[in-house]
């Protein structure tokens, strides 16, 4: 019986004591031979050996019971403390100290020294002489080649097609057993500026390699949460041929800058506002969320958005200097799993407390708030990273 085994060394928890004291007289009568006097009471603190915990009870039902009892007690205590605090606050009224702010990961972030200062001239010089300078100086316009890993399946193929509608001036080619290192010189000779390779595993796309072509860096991403157009609920009609605007959020560190510039160089420089389409790369804790929306301003403050187009999440695995050469290329940054608990996310940094509230909202709400915060007078493209227009 469950109750009979009660005495076998359970710790003297308060909850247990109530039952124990009720049972002890009976137990004592059973345990002690010949102790018939009901006046003899064993000591209130029952004989539980020190350091005993509920997890040492062998009987599962009993253990579960002990645990639930303990948990209820804990909850009661917590509620009591809360009530007491609340009472104290009410008693103090106006003089009560302000409520403490809960700690979140974003709150507790240590300042990252690699965050780029907008006025930093060394970084500006670096960016003026790097591989994307010709794009940002309007000397080249992007031409993208989208392909996949060898012999792709349906989902990947459809994702490529949808991506090519999102990215203007892009071409999809079916990959059939040709090495990337052989593809790259051919692309360069045909004036392509970027190469996107979507890697597929077990019929789902799971990786993205973005290589800037003449000599530029190659970024390798892990892709997850891929949603094709028909899987997106309440979506709008298919995107038009207009050049979309781009929004790049939270690419604040030096590595984030490089990656952000890579994304920016995929799209032509002159967005067509008539199309009211916008592609967003939102970075949060090193996950880059890609969304494609169509917006409409209903009034100065109110914006309606419709999600079109595919949606996916990227995480940077490595940034390699030079075109795709995973074996002999030099890496500018490699994601190292063992080093993860030493350093916080590398691409972004959010220092404001208020942002933690935005994080809990859905992406659409965040987006709406972002859009409404800008007035109609300034074109949205000023929010584009680097304000290159």
């Amino acid at each position, binding site marked *: 019986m469950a109750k009979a085994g009660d005495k076998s060394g359970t710790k003297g928890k308060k909850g247990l004591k109530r039952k124990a004291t009720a049972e002890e007289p009976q137990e004592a009568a059973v345990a002690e031979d010949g102790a018939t006097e009901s006046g003899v009471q064993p000591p209130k603190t029952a004989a539980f050996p020190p350091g005993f915990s509920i997890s040492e009870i062998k009987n599962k039902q009993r253990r579960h019971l002990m645990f639930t009892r303990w948990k209820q007690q804990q909850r009661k205590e917590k509620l009591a403390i809360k009530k007491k605090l609340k009472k104290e606050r009410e008693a103090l009224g106006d003089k009560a100290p302000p409520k403490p702010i809960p700690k979140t990961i974003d709150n507790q972030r240590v300042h990252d020294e690699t965050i780029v200062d907008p006025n930093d001239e060394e*970084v500006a010089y*670096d960016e003026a002489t790097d591989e994307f300078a010709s794009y940002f100086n309007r000397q080249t316009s992007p031409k993208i080649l989208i392909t996949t890993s060898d012999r792709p399946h349906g989902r990947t193929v459809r994702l490529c097609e949808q991506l090519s509608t999102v990215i203007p001036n892009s071409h999809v080619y079916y990959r059939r057993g040709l090495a990337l290192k052989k593809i790259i010189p051919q692309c360069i000779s045909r004036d392509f500026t970027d190469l996107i390779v979507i890697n597929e595993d077990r019929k789902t796309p799971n990786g993205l390699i973005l290589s800037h072509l003449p000599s530029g860096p190659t970024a390798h991403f892990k892709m997850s949460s891929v949603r094709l157009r028909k899987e997106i609920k309440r979506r709008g009609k298919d995107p038009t041929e207009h050049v979309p605007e781009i929004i790049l959020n939270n690419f604040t560190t030096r590595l984030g800058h490089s990656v952000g510039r890579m994304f920016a160089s995929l799209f032509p420089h002159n967005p067509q506002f008539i199309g009211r389409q916008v592609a967003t790369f939102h970075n949060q804790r090193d996950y880059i969320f890609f969304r494609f929306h169509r917006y409409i301003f209903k009034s100065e403050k109110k914006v309606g958005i419709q999600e079109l187009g595919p949606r996916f999440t990227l995480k940077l695995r490595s940034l390699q200097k030079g075109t795709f050469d995973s074996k002999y290329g*030099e*890496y500018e940054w*490699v994601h190292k799993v*063992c080093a993860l608990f*030493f350093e916080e996310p590398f691409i972004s940094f959010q220092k404001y407390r208020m942002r933690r509230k935005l994080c809990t909202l859905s992406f659409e709400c965040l987006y709406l708030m972002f859009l409404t915060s800008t007035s109609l007078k300034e074109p949205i493209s000023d929010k584009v990273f680097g304000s290159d227009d």
Partner: protein
Amino acid sequence: MAAAGARWNHVWVGTETGILKGSTVRQPRSGRHPALLCPQILMGCADKTVRYFSTEEGRFQGHKHCPGGEGTFRGLAQVDGTLITCVDSGIVRVWRNNDKEASSDPLLELSVGPGVCRMRQDPARPHVVATGGKENALKVWDLQGSEEPVFRAKNVRNDWLDLRVPIWDQDIQFLPESQKLVTCTGYHQVRVYDPASPQRRPVLEATYGEYPLTAMTLTPGGNSVIVGNTHGQLAEIDLRQGRLLGCLKGLAGSVRGLQCHPSKPLLASCGLDRVLRVHRIRNPRGLEHKVYLKSQLNCLLLSGRDDWEDQPQEPQEPKKAALQDTETDELWASLEAAAKRKLPDLEQTQGALQTRRRKKQRPGSTST
């Protein structure tokens, strides 16, 4: 960096964009008399000029245009008032070092073979240089001798599939107190050659990792080397047995420059991840300091300072540098005690002292 403080820099780092940066490593210890510093730094730039930087004055003094050959500089050396340069296409030239801008004809010109990755001067015999590169085997040249190399290495035997093993010597070091050389290759091999022995093939071969080894340095003991590869992995390899002694964590990008301190177990490393790191190699192995420098770092040079525990000279407090004897121990102790007692808004240096100490006490901060 301030001009007055330039002489106190521990590490000089060159970046991809052509900037030379000096960095000091701060530790709140007692001040001692500084050792002799290297007075001048030669910096080879991608536009085929060699610039002279004076550490005393903290600025560039002049430059020398060294034309000829294609590609970037792969090695620079100085001997007896002459300058030796080696470029990618394999032209090694010896120039008269007259410190003026007028470019003169080279005194001596050698063709080493195309695809040179490194040219290194023997510190014991300054007129001897070694070159090696991609499909360019290791060759040791005596610049005062003939036009033929003194030692020409032979490739290892064909592998188990009877295929020729490719050659890609990325870095070369001369071992002290012997004629031996160590090379690290792009095919993740570390090889030891001995010109004194009759065999031209490597005496010892060790492999590490799966990625090309880009930089190498000798440890103070002389028995091991530390190599770095394109993934930012640093490893210490014993040269007597050819085995791996240990690894160093922290770098996230390709290692471009490595140098060990000549006497202390400290290693400075720089790479494409834009951070200069100083690691401690033994007891215990771990990261000491990390400095974020905003550009991709290409090469580094430790200054000739023996003491890394000097308080660097601050431009606003020059009188601290005058304290050179051991009585400063008490002075520093009293300053430290004072710093702890004061309120958080301290002077700049003492604030730095506090934060450094606090950082060191954090557990698990040995490697990043």
